[in-house]
């Protein structure tokens, strides 16, 4: 890190001086009101919003920066009034905020050609649709051209501002881009920043970065080969570029600060069996390691070709306590995607969405987090019938049928999805121009992903019933049901027995692990063959997202010794109070299931005390844990270096811990910026020490 980067960090991250350039917030619904009064249709509105936002943005160029663009409009205008939205919600299924989000745009579709060429391409498509008599298509394509024009005008204003402040580097970039394709790595980075910024201005969110090391490598290589850049200079450029992801991120919508979907995916298996990890991948990791910022969030695609030094470099990053990289195993993910019907060449391109869900760049409009199934909820619903069951299998069958019923309900709820048009995003998705069809209406793949929460608690509950009620007959079913109804009041001994002495998932104990495998199989079975409203399929997953708190809230006491309302563990991990023997038993337990069938996404998370990362030798041994999990057949893993004392102290003295970064569910955030309920959950996760 040189002084230039240090200065940028001080200015943007520590002092947040750039926020002084922010304009007064607009009323989020004022533009929508105008649109409604004018009777504008919904297609036009999406385009008009971007044009309006860009025209209201004030270009800000700092004298020494090499990559510009800053958000000055704190609020993005809505295009539907609240009343219109209420009507839409009655008629349609609105996912999250009703915008296209959480997909991976093909930035290179614009970056590699420039706007001039793209406008020509659209003009040709317009001719074609005119001959077909497709008036709507023609109107849509013309709207896409206006979007490109507006961005070009915005870029021109940036060029003028750069000239005004005497920043020739930025002025030169905007002379070339976005009109024409970038000549240098720097221009490519500036182009990306422009596109990414405009996506946020379009109210598209969770704009994932995807395989940056693959689509940017030609520009990087060009500069290196031509001698325009040294490796160190390239590193500094990348660092400045990475800082850009953190400038406006407090304005991005998300469940909590930090949940903004800026996931970057590095490495991965090529179709020919070679490994795509390259010089740029390594440089990205080094930049992230030096900067110690929560964005972009680094994800590594790993496979049997991944070298030990890459795992070790990843572990160095984990040591910093940023909560990433997150690892995804190509050897599970790719076959899983192919099994779900993705074409082979698409499956090999997979990236992760905002958290960990598998998505395909350019061709997929999957809604990967459409809803969540509560495994533990299924067990709770079956409990009243427990005393009537003669055998454990009777009870298990009942749980299964409840699970199937719930899955059917969840799927039905997702019918009739609608979203706002997304013209800019459509310019970066395959086929939208040739078909004159907006991405919000669907893409090649339109599959829905469903999370599965409380898996370990459900497996523990069933294992407790199976061993203690049916096999050992130590507990009477009626007594157990009464105890649960009373939330263990006057049954404290029973609670302690269930909570601490019954088998728990995470100890390489087949009595529980086999039940978890079964639950996941039931989940996958119940989705098999189901079609969604867009002709896609449903994908089962092991993720929880925020459902680990939502599903647990108000859910009664459970046979694993859990109290009413007590939180589930996050994603694919042992219950919060399970005593786990250690990391080896843990990874053995969590690699037994048929993960290929439940590969929507959701990592095993392991918290390791930060002293395990003390020296290079121990770091390599921790790295071996990641590799071993993948060899065992794990799909996703995410390690955290934690220190509970530090987090407890941070709750008391937040001012001393402004930079303490933690992993929340699929993303990292600053500990002191999280709501207390999330802080407490993180503190309660079990950590392994040396």
């Amino acid at each position: 890190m040189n002084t230039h980067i240090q200065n940028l960090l001080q200015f943007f991250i520590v002092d947040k001086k750039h926020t002084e350039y922010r304009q007064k917030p607009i009323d989020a619904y004022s533009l929508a009101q105008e649109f409604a009064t004018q009777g504008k249709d919904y297609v036009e509105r999406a385009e008009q919003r971007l044009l309006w936002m860009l025209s209201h943005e004030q270009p800000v160029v700092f004298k020494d920066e090499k990559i510009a663009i800053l958000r000055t409009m704190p609020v993005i205008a809505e295009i539907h009034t609240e009343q219109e939205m209420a009507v839409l919600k009655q008629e349609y299924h609105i996912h999250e905020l009703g915008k296209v989000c959480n997909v991976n745009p093909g930035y290179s579709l614009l970056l590699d050609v420039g706007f001039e060429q793209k406008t020509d391409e659209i003009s040709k498509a317009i001719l074609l649709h005119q001959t077909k008599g497709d008036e709507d298509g023609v109107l849509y394509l013309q709207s896409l051209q206006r979007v490109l024009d507006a961005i070009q005008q915005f870029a021109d204003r940036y060029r003028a501002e750069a000239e005004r402040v005497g920043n020739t580097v930025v002025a030169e970039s905007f002379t070339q881009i976005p009109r024409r394709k970038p000549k240098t790595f720097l221009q490519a980075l500036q182009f990306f920043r422009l596109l990414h910024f405009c996506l946020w201005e379009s109210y598209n969110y969770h704009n994932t970065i995807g395989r940056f090391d693959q689509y940017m490598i030609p520009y990087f290589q060009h500069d290196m080969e031509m001698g325009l850049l040294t490796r160190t200079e390239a590193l500094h450029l990348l660092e400045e570029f990475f800082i850009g992801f953190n400038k406006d991120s407090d304005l991005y919508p998300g469940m909590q600060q930090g949940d903004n979907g800026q996931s970057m995916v590095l490495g991965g298996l090529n179709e020919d069996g070679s490994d795509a990890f390259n010089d740029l991948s390594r440089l990205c990791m080094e930049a992230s390691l030096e900067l110690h910022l929560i964005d972009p969030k680094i994800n590594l695609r790993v496979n049997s070709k991944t070298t030990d030094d890459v795992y070790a470099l990843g572990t160095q990053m984990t040591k910093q306590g940023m909560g990433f990289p997150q690892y995804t195993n190509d050897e599970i993910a790719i076959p899983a995607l192919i099994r779900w019907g993705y074409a082979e060449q698409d499956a090999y391109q997979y990236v992760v969405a905002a958290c960990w869900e598998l998505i395909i760049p350019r061709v997929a409009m999957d809604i990967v987090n459409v809803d969540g199934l509560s495994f533990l909820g299924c067990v709770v619903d079956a409990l009243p019938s427990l005393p009537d069951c003669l055998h454990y299998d009777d009870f298990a069958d009942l749980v299964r049928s409840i699970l199937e019923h719930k899955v059917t309900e969840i799927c039905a709820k997702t019918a009739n999805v609608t979203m706002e048009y997304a013209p800019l995003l459509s310019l970066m998705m395959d086929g939208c121009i040739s078909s004159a069809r907006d991405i919000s209406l669907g893409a090649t793949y339109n599959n829905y992903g469903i999370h599965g929460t409380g898996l370990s608690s459900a497996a523990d509950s069933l294992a407790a019933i199976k061993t203690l009620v049916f096999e050992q007959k130590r507990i009477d079913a009626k007594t157990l049901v009464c105890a649960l109804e009373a939330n263990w009041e006057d049954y404290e001994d029973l609670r302690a027995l269930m909570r601490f002495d019954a088998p728990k998932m995470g100890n390489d104990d087949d009595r529980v692990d086999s039940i978890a495998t079964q639950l996941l199989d039931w989940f996958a079975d119940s989705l098999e063959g189901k079609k969604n409203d867009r002709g896609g399929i449903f994908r089962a997953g092991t993720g929880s997202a925020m459902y680990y708190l939502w599903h647990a809230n108000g859910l009664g006491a459970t046979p694993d010794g859990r109290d009413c309302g007590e939180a589930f563990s996050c994603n694919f991990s042992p219950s919060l109070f399970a005593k786990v023997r250690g990391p080896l038993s843990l990874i053995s337990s969590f690699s037994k299931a048929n993960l290929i069938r439940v590969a929507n996404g959701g990592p095993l998370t392991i918290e390791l005390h930060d002293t395990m990362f003390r020296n290079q030798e121990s770091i390599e041994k921790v790295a071996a844990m990641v590799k071993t999990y993948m060899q065992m057949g794990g799909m996703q893993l995410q390690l955290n270096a934690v220190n509970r004392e530090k987090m407890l102290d941070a709750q008391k003295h937040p001012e001393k811990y402004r930079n303490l970064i933690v992993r929340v569910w699929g993303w990292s955030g600053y500990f002191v910026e999280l709501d207390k309920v999330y802080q407490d959950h993180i503190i309660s996760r079990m950590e392994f020490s040396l």
Partner: protein
Amino acid sequence: MKGLVFDIKEWAVFDGPGVRTTVFLKGCPLRCAWCHNPEGISPKPQLLVSDASCIHCHACEQVCPHEANPVQCTACGACVAVCPLHLRNIAGTWYEAKDLASLLQKQARVLKANGGGVTFSGGEPLYQHMFLKEVIGYLDGVHIAIETSGHAQPKVFQDIISLCDYILMDLKVMDAQIHQQYCGQDNHLILKNLTFLKQSGKPFVIRIPVIPQVNDTLENFEKTAQVLEGAKTLQYVELLPYQKVAGAKYQMLGQHYRPGFDEERKPNVDPTAFERLGIPCRIL
């Protein structure tokens, strides 16, 4: 036969080459003032209570067969089961040698693939040498390391060392009197066993817990270096600077931690005495 184990740690990264599973055997003949595993000293199971978050529900007292008198505690475990916050634990689980071995054997493949194996630690693992010998005898194709104080009868020491692949031995202080004062025993057995170890042909590491003003003098380091000079299979000397958290577990045993030296002083971890004699030295 049965042996008493107070912990099994998986994916241990500081207990020998590669990735290891470390078994902590209970019982130790020494009484080192700085011991950070006090629950490893007694050869019997013990009750550990962390009462910081105790809600005083008295459930433990109601089930105690000894009227909750800690002096009479036999670590029967009655109170462990009823504590709603699970603040009570028994340090010390009896294992049949065969069962412990099969648990470890199950992990052997992964440990071997990661250049590691099983490490026996303590307490003092040689304190239960018969049990240890039986466990090792059951293990097949597993790399065995031992972490020992070296305080054992030479016959026992030699017998077990011959079964191990890698030895991590402490050499706390060279002066017999200081050793007696701070460890409760003098060091003649340790030095005798060290003589054997140096000629055993087995790769070994010497560890020195560096305690402020007890053994962190240049004189002690020089004497240690001298006795190690020329040992062909010595891998390196490792200095373990004293950590103030050492006293954390005493209260859980109902004991007081009285280290008898100045905890606040920074220990001197100067490796030059070793490096001067060509002995590689690491600081953890």
